C-alpha cells in the first residue's frame, strides 16, 4: 500500500506552474504516475492537453526526461526509446534500470494513436502506457472521440433538436488491450489514488507491455465544477460509469465494488455535457442499460477467470 505522506515527501517530478485548468484530472494523474514511477523514469507524451500545458518553451514541468514527438505516435516513440535503452544496455553504455512510460489522452490513444499503441503492445516492449481518458478531444475544444460516452454533448456531437449528443457508446479500449495478451492491463480512477499508484508499480514490474486507462475529469469539457473533479471520480465508479479493475496474467480482478451504488443521474447531472438528457430519460435508460451490462459482464469475467 502506498502512503500518501511518502508520496508527497518525495517531491514533485511533475512540478506545479504548468498551465492546466483548475480541477484538471490529467495533471493529478501525471503527478501520481510520476511519483509512483520515481525518478528513474523517462516519459513520452502524445500531443494533447498534458503535453501542451507542461512544456511551453522555455519552461518545463518535468524534472525527469520527457519527450513529445507527435499526436498519434507516443507508443511507437516509446518503443524506439525502449529499444535504444536495450541496445545501449547491451553495449554497456547504460547501467541503470529505467522505466519507459508513454501517455496520451483518449484522442491520442483510442483514436489516432490506436495503431501505434497496438503495434507497440504486440511487439512486447517493456513499457507502460497510461491513457488519461477525459472522453473527448479537449485540447482542440471538446470534440467527440470514440471514448465519448453515449449521450454526451460535444462540439462535434452537439445536443440538437434532432440528435441528442453522441449516439454511440464508448469504444472499450481496455478490453482491446486485454485482447493483446499483454501481462498487465488496468482501469483506475484518481479518487482511488492508492489503487492507481499500486497499479503503476505493478505495471512497471512486469516483463513486457502494460496499459492503464484512467478516468480524467475535465471541468471545461464536462461542464463540471473544478472542485468536483475528485468527487466525480468517485461517483463515476459508484454509478458503474467507470469500472476500477485489473487484468493480470489472464485473471480479472474488480478492485472496487461499490458497496453503495448510486443512481447514474447523480454522476450525469453534475455535468453540463449531459444536461439535455434530463428531457430525454429514455437516453439515460439506454446508457444505464449499457453500463450495467458492462459491469455485470466484468463481474462474470472475474468469476470465470478465477475459477
Amino acid at each position, binding site marked *: 500500500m502506498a502512503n500518501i505522506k511518502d508520496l508527497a515527501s518525495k517531491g514533485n517530478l511533475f512540478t506545479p506552474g504548468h498551465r492546466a485548468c483548475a480541477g484538471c484530472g490529467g495533471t493529478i494523474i501525471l503527478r501520481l504516475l510520476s511519483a509512483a514511477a520515481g525518478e528513474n523514469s523517462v516519459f513520452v507524451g502524445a500531443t494533447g492537453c498534458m503535453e501542451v500545458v507542461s512544456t511551453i518553451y*522555455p519552461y*518545463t514541468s518535468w524534472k525527469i526526461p520527457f519527450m513529445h514527438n507527435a499526436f498519434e505516435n507516443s507508443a511507437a516513440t516509446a518503443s524506439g526509446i525502449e529499444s535504444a535503452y536495450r541496445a545501449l544496455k547491451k553495449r554497456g553504455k547504460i547501467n*541503470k534500470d529505467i522505466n519507459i512510460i508513454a501517455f496520451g489522452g483518449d484522442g491520442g490513444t483510442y483514436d489516432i494513436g490506436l495503431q*501505434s499503441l497496438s*503495434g507497440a503492445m504486440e511487439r512486447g516492449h517493456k513499457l507502460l502506457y497510461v491513457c488519461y481518458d477525459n472522453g473527448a478531444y479537449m485540447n482542440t475544444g471538446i470534440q467527440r472521440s470514440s471514448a465519448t460516452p453515449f449521450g454526451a454533448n460535444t462540439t462535434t456531437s452537439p445536443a440538437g433538436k434532432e440528435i441528442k449528443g453522441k449516439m454511440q457508446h464508448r469504444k472499450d479500449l481496455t478490453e482491446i488491450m486485454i485482447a493483446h495478451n499483454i501481462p498487465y492491463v488496468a482501469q483506475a480512477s484518481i479518487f482511488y489514488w492508492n489503487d492507481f499508484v499500486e497499479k503503476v508499480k505493478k505495471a512497471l514490474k512486469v516483463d513486457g507491455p502494460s496499459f492503464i486507462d484512467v478516468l480524467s475529469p475535465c471541468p471545461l469539457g464536462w461542464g463540471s465544477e473544478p472542485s468536483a473533479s475528485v468527487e466525480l471520480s468517485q461517483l463515476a465508479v459508484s454509478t458503474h460509469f467507470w469500472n476500477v479493475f485489473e487484468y493480470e496474467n489472464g485473471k480479472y480482478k474488480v478492485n472496487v465494488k461499490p458497496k453503495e451504488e448510486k443512481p447514474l443521474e447523480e454522476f450525469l447531472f453534475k455535468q453540463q455535457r449531459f444536461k439535455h438528457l434530463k428531457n430525454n430519460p429514455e437516453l439515460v435508460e439506454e446508457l444505464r442499460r449499457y453500463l450495467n451490462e458492462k459491469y455485470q459482464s466484468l463481474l462474470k469475467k472475474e468469476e470465470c477467470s478465477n475459477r
Partner: protein
Amino acid sequence: MSKIVAKTGNEAMAEAMRQINPDVVAAYPITPATEIVQIFSSFVSNGEVDTVFVPTESEHSAISACVGAAAAGARVMTGTSSQGLALMHEILFIAGGLRLPIVICEVNRALSAPINIHCDHSDTMASRDAGWIQIFSEDPQEAYDQTILAMKLSEQLFIPSMVTTDGFIISHAMQRVEMYDDREVKEYLGEPKSPYNLLDLDNPITVGPLALQDYYMEIKVQQANFIKESKSKIKEILNDFNKKMKRDYSVVEKYMMDDAEFCFVALGSTAGTLRYTVDKLRKEGKKVGLLKVRFYRPFFEEDIVEALKNIKGCAIFDRSDMFAGTGGHLFNDIKSALYNSSSRPFVRDYVYGLGGRDIDVEDIENVYNDIKDFTENHGKGESVKYITVRE
C-alpha cells in the same frame, strides 16, 4: 583491404547497414525497398550486428520509433520507399527539427495514384522541405558508399539524411561493388554521436516542447542557418571521406563540362545513360557535358551556377513533376538559382521516366537536338517538355 563483390543496390545498402552496425533499426517493408531491411533482419537474427530490430506496424511508427531511439542517444537507421516515405512525412519534419542523426535508405518509387511500384523521384521530392540531407545514387557502389557517408554526415552535423537509389533500376540491378573492410567502416565512423540523450537521468531534458510566437521563429531560423552552414561542412566531410575511403565524390559532379556549350543535368541512375550519350555525342564532335547532382538537399546552388556559367543551353532531366504547371523540381530549383546570375544559359525541363518509364540513348540524343534548337531560338516556346511519353 577492400573486396570486390556483385551486389544489387538493396544488397549494397544492407551491407553498409551491417558495417555501420546501428543500435536500433525500425522499419516496415515496402516494394522495392523491402529487401534492405529483410536482408538486415537476417544479420540481426544471425548475430552479425548488435542492433535491436523493431519491426513496426507501419512506416509512421517506424520513423516515430527512430525519432525516439535517436533522442535516446542511439545510432538509428531505417529503409523505405514511396507511400512509406509519404506516410513518414509528418515525422520527417520532427526529426529534422529535433536535429536527430537518423539515416533512411530510401528507394525512389512513384507515388500513387495510379499505384505503381517503379522508379520516379516523386516520393523523395515530396519530402525535400523536411530539413533532411538528400543524396542520390547512380549505382550500387554509390548507394553503398553514400549510406556510410550519410551516417557520418548526420552524426557530425545533427541533420538526418536520406540516401536514395532508383527503384528496380538500381535497387534490384546487380553491379560490381567495392566494399571496405568492416574494420575500416567502424574506424571511419567511430562511436555514435547524438546531440542530446534522453536517457541521461542525471541531466533530465524535455525534448519536443511547445514553442509559440515568442520562440518558434528563432528556432526555425537557427535551423535555416545550420542547414546553410552545413554546405561547407558537407564538402569538408566529403573530402575527408574521399581521402580515407579512396573515392572521388563531389556535391555536384561535372563530366566533360570544361568546354561544353550544352549540358544535361540529372539525378540518380539516369546520369549513367547520360554519360554514355555524352561520350557518343562527343565522338560526333558535339560540345556537350553532364552535371550530376549528387546532393539535392541541401541545394548546392553556387556550385551549380558556377558549373553552368559557360553553358549556352541546359537540358534539365526531371523524374518528377510539381503539378504546378511549371515542370519538375530540379528544373524549378536550378532556374531559380540562375536568376541572379550574370551568365545564365537557356534552360528547358525534360520530365521523363515517371512510374519507371524507360529512357534510352535515342531519347537523350533527341533532347540534345531539342535544347540546341531551343537555345538558337533564344528560349522561345514551352519551357517544360514531357518526353518518353507514348504518342
